[in-house]
Every structure is written in C-alpha cells, then in structure tokens.
C-alpha cells in the first residue's frame, strides 16, 4: 500500500553506499549497469568508488554476478517472500521463528547481519529482478521488497527499483499512468479506466479467452504467454505491429511491418528509473513508424459508424 520510494540512477551513482540485487543477474542481463550506475563508478559523495560501496546479491544460484558481490546470500527457490517478510520483522526488532527462517536456506545471523548493514548505510538501494517478480508470489514478492525499502526510511535513506526488461516497458507503464492513473491492466470498456490486475491484465485475459480481438504493439506474446493464451491469440483476429516477423505474427491475421523506434524512427524511451530519453533516428526506413500506423487505424475507425451486435446473431454465438 502507498507510494513507491524511488530515485534516478544518477543518484544511485553519486550516493548509494549499499546496493542489494535480489533475484537478478545484472552481470549478464544488464551488463553496463555495474559500470555505469552502481558499484564501479566514483560518485560525488563516494570518492572511493567501489571501495566505498557494499554490494549484496540475493539469488537462488551462483551466477556471474556473484564475483562482483561482497556478500552472496543463496535462498531456496520460492522462499523470497519468506526472507523479505522475516527481514521486515527484524528491521523492527520483532521475533521470528528461527527454524522457519532456516528453511529459506539462510541463517538468522545472516539476515540480522544484512539488516544491521542496511541500517548502517547512508543511502541504500534494492534492485529486484525477474527472479523475484516472476516466481511464486509474483506481485506480492515485489510488494514485499518495495515495502521493506519504504520501511527502511525510518532509519536511513532507502529506495527500491525493479530491473526492467528489454524494450520500452517502463515507457508503456509511464504513459498509461499519466493518461489513466494506472500503470497496466486497465479496462476502458465502461468509459472510465478501471484497474484490476488478474482480471484485466493481458495474460489473464488471454488465458481465460475473454477477448474477441487483439492488437499487439512492440511485444511478442506468442513467444512468452502460456499455451492457452497463445491459443486465444490464434483463435481471435490478431493484428501485430512489429519491425520483424515474430512468433505472434505467425498466429496473427494481419502483420504490419513498421520501422524500428530509436534506429529508423524517433520517439521517447524511458530508462528503468523512469527518466525519459529522446531517441534520434540514425537510419531511414521504408516502413512507417508505429505511431503513424496507429494514427491511420484510428482515423479509419473514426469513419466507421458505431457497431452494435444484432440480438439474433448474438444468440447463435456468431460475432
């Protein structure tokens, strides 16, 4: 509940003396993250650079990122929520069950040491990856880490930030946020935005088959969704806008090739800390941009008269 405690990566570079990576492998998945923003840089208030910072990695297995870490904590798979919840209790000095803590793969002393370090630092930051947000518990795992960071502000400055994936995923969230007030899973059917992840989020709509058309822009659900979702995409009329032929294009009725944003068409991309970056095209493309295609579709739809299903055809299930 409540807001998100965040900052820009510039602040992390200049101030963060405690960096915690949870459920991610930045050495391989965000290769420039260490060197540009977090542990390797010398910052305005961290003249010593790497020596002035503590880096903790929490993951279920040893990855390439372990070498960069001062402390590596290996949790059992699916126990992240338990560990964060225990940390929240320890931060407040409350009792936890030692035996149940040890079931997570970590000892109580290790967690207490982590809490002490978190409280001692001047500026702490938690970066969490898909190992946390896409495993059992999903949004609650992310909520746990965000709440832990918020609660740490009773002792010192602390922020939490998700390690976003490829493409402009942060940008899609940002635009939906300022236009509807919600970041994703928004339904506009009744004329006003309604937010309910689990009901209106893409994967749930597709898996339940609650849609009768799909418009896919800058994503490849055909490669990432569970099989029932892919079956729905193949069943309904699906339109794909993408520079390349994707897995989804093969299921779709229509594929429109567009130019690559940032390479052959201009636009704005949001960095993982939600800082907008303008993109200038370096190449020319024979294809229209996504924006132009969407504008032309809107103009064409506007010319059509309002459509209502006929009750007789409704009853026979043909729509």
């Amino acid at each position, binding site marked *: 509940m409540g807001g998100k405690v965040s900052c820009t990566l510039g602040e992390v570079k200049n101030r963060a003396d405690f960096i915690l990576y949870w459920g991610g492998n930045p050495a391989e998945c965000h290769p420039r993250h260490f060197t540009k923003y977090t542990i390797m840089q010398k910052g305005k208030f961290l003249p010593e650079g790497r020596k002035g910072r503590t880096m903790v990695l929490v993951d279920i297995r040893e990855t390439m990122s372990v070498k960069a870490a001062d402390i590596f904590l290996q949790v059992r798979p699916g126990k992240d929520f338990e560990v964060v*919840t225990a940390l*929240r209790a320890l931060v407040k000095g*409350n009792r936890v*069950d030692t035996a149940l803590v040890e079931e997570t793969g970590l000892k109580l002393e290790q967690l207490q040491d982590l809490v002490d370090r978190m409280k001692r630092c001047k500026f702490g930051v938690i970066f969490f990856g898909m190992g946390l947000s896409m495993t059992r518990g999903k949004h609650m795992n992310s909520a746990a880490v965000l709440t832990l960071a918020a609660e740490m502000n009773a002792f010192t400055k602390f922020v939490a930030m998700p390690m976003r994936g490829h493409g402009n995923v942060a940008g899609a969230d940002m635009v939906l946020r300022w236009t509807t007030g919600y970041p994703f899973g928004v339904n506009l*059917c009744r004329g006003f935005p309604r937010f*309910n992840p689990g009901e209106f989020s893409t994967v749930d709509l597709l898996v339940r088959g609650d849609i009768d058309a799909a418009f896919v822009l800058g994503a490849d659900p055909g490669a990432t969704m569970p099989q029932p979702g892919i079956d729905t995409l193949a069943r309904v009329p699906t339109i794909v806008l993408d520079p390349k032929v994707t897995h989804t294009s093969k299921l779709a009725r229509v594929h429109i090739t567009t130019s690559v944003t940032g390479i052959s068409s201009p636009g704005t991309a949001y960095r993982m800390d939600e800082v907008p970056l303008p993109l200038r095209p370096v190449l020319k493309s024979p294809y229209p941009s996504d924006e132009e295609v969407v504008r032309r579709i809107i103009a064409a739809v506007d010319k059509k008269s309002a459509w*209502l299903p006929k*009750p007789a055809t*409704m009853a026979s*299930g043909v729509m």
Partner: protein
Amino acid sequence: MIKLTLKDQPTVPLEAEMLTPDQFSGLNLDAIRALPVFLGKRQLRVDDFFTVDGEPSDELEIHGDLAKVKYIGRAMTRGRIKVCGNVGMHLGAAMKGGSIEVTGNASDWIGGEMTGGLIHVHGNAGGQVGAAYRGSLSGMNNGTILIGGTAGLEVGMRMKRGIIAVKGQVRDFCGLQMKGGTILLMNGAEIRTGAWMIRGTIISLKPIKLLPTFPFACTYSPTFLRLIAKHVAPLGLSLPMDEQTGTYHRYSGDSSVPGKGEILVWQPRV
C-alpha cells in the same frame, strides 16, 4: 420467483450488475427484459442474453453456464439469488444483505468488499474471496462466505469482519493483510497463510506451512471458538473442540507488520 436462463455463453465477459433482487423490485417481466447489461463497451438488454419468465418476486433463479457473467448480485440488500451452474467474477460484490447460492463453481472476487449477507458456493471458488479491491483499504466488512470446494489466491485479503469458511484447500496468501474477521480452513492451505495480517483469526483444521514471522505462542482450547462453532453450525460446519481429542496451537503474527493476528491450528491428540 423470477427465472432467467442464459441463451448462449457470451464470447467476451458480460457485466450484469442489474441482476439483483433490488433492481428487479417493482418491475414487471418486460421491464426486467429491458434492463441494461454491458458486453464489452456495448450496452444491450437483458433479453438479448437471457430468457426471463416466472413472476416478479425477491427470489431470482439463474440457469446456464454463467462463467463469463460478472457482477451478479452486486450491492444487493435483500432477497435470494440461486445460480444453477457456474458463475463469473465479482459475484455479490459489495452486497449488504440477502443470500446467494451457487451450485457450480465461482470465479475470482466473490463477495469483494461485502458488508452483509451470505454467499454459498457449492463448487470451487477462484481467488480474492471477500477481498478488498486494488488500492482499497479494507475488504469484506461483515457477512458470511461458505465455499464447498477449493479456493484460490488471496482469500480474505484485507478483510475486516465476517466469516469465510472453505471446505477444500485454499492456495497461497490466505488472509493476506487481514484486519479482522475469521477464516475457517477445513482442509488447510498452501503457503504464506496470514501474510502481513494485522488482526483477525485464521483457524485451520489441518497442519499448514507458516511464515517465519509467526512464532509459536501457546497450546490451548479457546472459549470463543464455541461461539464461532455455534454460528457456523447452521451452515453444516463443525469445529473440533473436545480437549480429549486435541487442542489448538496458537501462532501469533504477522511480526513483520507488526500484527496482533492469530493462526490456530488444530492438533489432534495421538
């Protein structure tokens, strides 16, 4: 009794918050047939989807596979709805009184933020039973929900008052951020039961996996359980209470919040 029969399952979810005894009161059958329902963004009539017969009354019976029909019994205050078949999301959301019975399975969010009345699902239910809507501070604030089968994630999320009883197993995060009320788990739960609970009682008759933030408190046979047992006896539920046959282990938590909630787990004597 008014009888509605679904003609054909809609292809996309149908939002039918008008299907309540309150909305039907004082209307003849033709007026009921003309009530609006929403298919996607389109407003249509009840009789585009349902055949309506019977005679006007506070009792409503709906037949067919209503798995894609949402918001049945929304904010109802009186009367009775019987759904013969499956039912979709938000059944009895924000209801204040009356009763709903479902013979088949129900979907997510049944009894969300309800403040009174009874919902009885004979089959399985989805997640977020009696829960708070996203961004809302509290979930169900009174009333009773009884699930004959299993239930999904986040049962009773942020509930404040009332009773949820589940005969089958429930999935993760049962009683998440609970603020009060009682959840009866006749067949246990998966993991993270009672996560971040502030107050309230979760009673499990089967051993369950607990979070590390639920330290063991004591073994006892609480007196108040007799009251709850008396309350749920008309629903066909019985709680073991005889000290000769076993006791309850009390775990208090969630110490991360920190909370004054409790999880009672029945321990039969061996």
